[in-house]
């Protein structure tokens, strides 16, 4: 996995506990890197499982799950995008299956996928094109550090560390 990511500027790479999360790797990426990473994963015989978004206070966290057929090594790519401009490049040119997943994410959260060949409502009615059912109310929305764990960090830049910083301090004080 680490070899695979060589040459891609990642924001954070972390090992995850397979028993408790069901995944091997978690990688934070900048929106611009997602297409390049997807191509590398395609070359390494990974197949796409799903694409979806999480509505959190910091913006939208778009998640991509990949897995391989011969080795069980599930990878999750996470891309944090802002609420003001929820746009991310589409990977439908590499994984054709992503087209529908991205359209679904557009339906549910209003995330725009640039370069998707057919970004029209998939599950929702055409009249409801601007209604996104899975957006949270301000009261229910949580911060990323309240929801996710970083896992066993291999490399991480300051921005992502800052997102999780407080939570780790709390854990330390509990201990």
């Amino acid at each position: 996995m680490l070899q695979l990511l060589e040459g891609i500027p990642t924001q954070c790479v972390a090992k995850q506990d397979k028993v408790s999360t069901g995944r091997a790797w978690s990688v934070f990426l900048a929106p611009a890197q997602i297409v390049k990473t997807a191509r590398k994963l395609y070359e390494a015989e990974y197949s796409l499982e799903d694409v979806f978004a999480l509505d959190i206070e910091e913006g939208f966290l778009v998640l991509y799950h990949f897995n391989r057929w011969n080795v069980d090594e599930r990878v999750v790519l996470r891309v944090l995008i802002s609420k003001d401009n929820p746009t991310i490049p589409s990977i439908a040119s590499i994984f054709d299956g992503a087209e529908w997943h991205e359209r679904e994410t557009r339906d549910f959260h209003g995330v725009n996928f640039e370069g998707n060949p057919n970004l029209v409502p998939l599950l929702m009615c055409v009249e409801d094109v601007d209604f996104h059912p899975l957006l949270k109310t301000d009261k229910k929305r949580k911060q990323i550090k309240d929801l996710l764990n970083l896992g066993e960090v291999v490399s991480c830049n300051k921005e992502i560390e800052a997102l999780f910083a407080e939570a780790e301090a709390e854990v330390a004080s509990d201990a």
Partner: protein
Amino acid sequence: MSAYQNLEQMKGDFYTQKFEAGKQDGTLIINMGPQHPSTHGVLRIVIEVDGEYIVRSEPVLGYLHRMHEKMGETQTWGGFIPNMGRVDYGHPMAWNWAYVGAVEKLMGIEVPERAEYLRVIMTELNRLTSHLLWWGAYILDLGAFTPIMYAFDDREMLLDILQRPSASRLTYSNFRVGGVQMDLDDKCLELIRTFIPHFRERLPMYHDLVTENLILRRRIEGVGIIDEDMCQRYGCTGPVLRGAGVAYDVRKDEPYSIYDRFDFEIPTQDSACSAGRYHVRVAEMEQSLRIIEQALEQLPSAEGKHIMDKAPKPSMKPPAGEAYFAVEGGRGKIGVYVVSDGSKVPYRVKLRAPGFSNMNAFAEAAKGTILADAVAILGSLDLIIPELDR
């Protein structure tokens, strides 16, 4: 009174109009569905045909979008389980298991051993009903009415067995976080033991009746090629992937629960066509019987062991975090991803439906085939529409 007063509306709707944009000269755009007997429900496909040949096609989903992911964010953790029985009515036990397994991962719960065996037995029996339903309906789609009568005959026997521990004929939701709701009683175990040899006898008859039939073979062999590369690009799993020659089965490759204790094979076919997928499913039924047989042998006794021993209360509050759990369903890899913020209600539940990805490959597979082949391809993908639309 004229029914044609809304001429604008009659011309077609958004999807047809959008599709018409790239239309070639001399071709015809037709709608298959949302009410079409071979789409197994309410799937709609816009197809451009040149004579009898499909130039391009686009499935239109969402006619049965039942807001499962929205409900995941409004129901309690325990209250979401009945939804799992309704996502995919073909193989609801696997969906139950995927969701319950994800929550168990999140909470770090270990399931009592007897409950694990009960889960395996019930899921495999349910896989048989799922494949029988597919088998009957597929042959019906292709124009033969009789086989579905045989399939439902055996399926009714299975439903009689399954309704004893689940109190339901179709939309099972008897899995609980940390166990299963009801035990299999002695009568039920006896019914299963008599069913296995009965079904073993019936399987060769199925082959004699249908598999070797020349008309069927002509209609499905070499039709609708979905090869390994396509599977990778679209994320197809289950019998579609195994029909393309890849021996990938979540039960073997990502073993969950106690599946590593059983001796069974993963049937594969190299042809990558509809016939390949057909043979894989029929062979899988035999393997499911083997698993059930072994599970019955190994089943620990019920004395002093409770199947709901370690189950938390229905108003459980899993710790904040995330978990992904994948199981092998009748149609492929079912994945459930849950995020908890430590409250009684899930923060996000993402359901990864295998049919969604399999259906995605349809447009490419159907290109260049004739219209009647489209039905053969659709059936071979084993679609359950609520699962596609969720």
